[in-house]
């Protein structure tokens, strides 16, 4: 398997704080990678740096061999990385459909003539987009189909997560970043949601996924490989069992035993 995403020597400093410390990381094609580590170990910062929200202090990022270091978020998205946010960041006053379409931005035709004057062509495009959104919602929660034109703010947490995942998936990304999808949800809900995601038909294309998660159960069930971060550095990597057994990881999570 070739590397879809590779980061080399990635560092991110905020003033005196080092959030990422020359990190090397690789995500392979079709892989389900779990990213774990204690709070403040730099997981979310890594997402933010890769997706272009922050400009890294040092290091390089390559997506399928192309350099995407310090590219603006729009550019990174266009090359095929989509993400969700730790604290759900939907536009609450917009409808479910609107929110999903924001994720579909790269395929939408944004020309003035198309949108304002040639309404017939626009309407045709709208219908096909609606199909697309409906297909996604049907896979995750068919109940949402009836409320597709209702504001997201009325939904419960789990449905909001679902909409967020639809928003990330609608553009058929090559690589999906999920930032703690279980936050604010119960165990059962999380499990259900993750099963839904994995079983989702992504149109023949194999989805690569990076998952930040504190629920180790979720990590065990889903991921094929894990990377453990601590203080912005990679502590170890491997499959779930080997990572869990690593004394360094135990130390990072549980602290050192008193001598």
């Amino acid at each position, binding site marked *: 398997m070739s590397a879809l995403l590779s980061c080399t020597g990635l560092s991110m400093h905020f003033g005196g704080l080092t959030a990422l410390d020359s990190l090397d990381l690789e995500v392979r094609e079709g892989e389900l990678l779990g990213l774990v580590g204690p709070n403040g170990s730099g997981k979310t910062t890594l997402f933010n740096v890769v997706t272009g929200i922050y400009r890294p202090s040092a290091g390089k990022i390559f997506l399928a061999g192309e350099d995407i270091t310090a590219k603006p978020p729009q550019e990174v*998205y266009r090359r095929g990385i989509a993400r969700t946010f730790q604290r759900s*960041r939907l*536009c609450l006053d917009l409808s479910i459909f609107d929110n999903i379409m924001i*994720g579909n931005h790269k395929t939408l035709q944004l020309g003035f003539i198309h949108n304002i004057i040639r309404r017939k062509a626009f309407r045709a495009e709208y219908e096909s987009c609606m199909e697309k959104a409906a297909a996604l919602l049907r896979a995750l929660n068919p109940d949402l189909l009836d409320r597709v034109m209702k504001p997201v703010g009325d939904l419960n947490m789990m449905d909001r997560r679902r909409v967020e995942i639809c928003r990330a998936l609608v553009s058929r990304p090559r690589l999906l970043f999920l930032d703690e999808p279980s936050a604010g949800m119960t165990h059962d809900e999380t499990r259900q949601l993750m099963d839904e995601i994995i079983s989702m038909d992504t149109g023949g294309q194999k989805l690569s996924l990076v998952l930040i998660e504190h629920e180790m159960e979720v990590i065990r069930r889903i991921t094929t490989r894990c990377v453990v971060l601590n203080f912005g550095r990679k502590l170890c990597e491997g499959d779930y069992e080997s990572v869990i057994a690593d004394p360094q990881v135990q130390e990072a999570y549980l602290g050192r035993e008193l001598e």
Partner: protein
Amino acid sequence: MRRMAVFFSGPAGCVFLALIILGWSNFFLRAEEQFPILVYMLLVVFLGFVANLLHLDDSFRASVAGHERLWDLCLIIVMAALIWLFREDHYNLFLLGSIMAYSIAVLGLNVQLGYAGVINFSCASFFGIGSYTAALLMTRAGIPPLPGLVAGGVVAALIGCVLLLPVLRTSGHYAALVTMAFALLLRVFLDVSEWFGGPQGITVQPMSLFGLDFSRNIVFGETELSFYLKYDAAFLLLLCLAFSLVRRVERSWIGLALDAVRSDETASACFGVNIMRWKITAFTLGNFLSGTAGAMYAMMLAYISPANFTFADSLLFLSILLLGGIGNIRGVLLATVFVVLIPEKFQVIQEYRYLIYSALVLLMIVFRPMGLLPRRPRVYSGGRA
């Protein structure tokens, strides 16, 4: 009871509502004594109360949402009918024209603030830039009125572009300050500049189209129709164009992108929304609309001065937007009607009108921040509920 609700949620609701609006406006505009005017104003509150009591308000809402074409047509007919009813009445025709001019400007502000969330405290300045551009181009450069009208909008948009750099780089309160500083700057500038006519202002040449001079009364045998009739007709056309433009913007991917920029810049950027592009689009389009409205308004006024375009006027535009329900273009039109009409007709409050406006808006912000008619989620094609 139920049958009535069903009846009014069909097309009949639109027609009925339109007739009520027409009747009320006719009597309200004709009333001159203060007491009947007060009665008419209370009547609105009373009618709203009765509709609410009979649960008819939902029916009307459904009717309007379900028969959009019909409703639009009804409103245009109501407006045209009003213009025709007052064909000989300078004052009322002028009022109707002002309402429409303000509506267009507020529609522009709605694109900026309601959709894209770009703060603009200088809406009246762009309105004024449109006015002055048209006036100066016509008097000093001898440009014909129609290009003058377009130039008003274009120059307002261009001057807006000068402000773009600070407006785009800043956000929140800092952006508010930039536009506010611009509003004050422009006001002082117009006041002290000799070339722009100073505090006394300048006269504006009238609109004329295909040899039709807008400043002359139309003489029809015995009857003489007010020249404002022509301005009102032109304004009605402009308003329809502006309204359908803004609505099409809202119901398109452009509107979606603008909304995305407003509600969460960072998240939107992660999905490829080009923040700069949409902010620029919204700001420029809004200023163009304000400027065009200003140019036409100046021609109707025939005489403009810096006092017409103060910071207080910008606040007035913002208040209209907030009163109507930010982002809801129908609500905005409704609010414009009330805000322009009531102090003009209800002269008792004329002196106190700024006090009353501001107190009203203040209460509105505290108790009903979404406005009279809160915005509803977007539908991409109207007519179908």
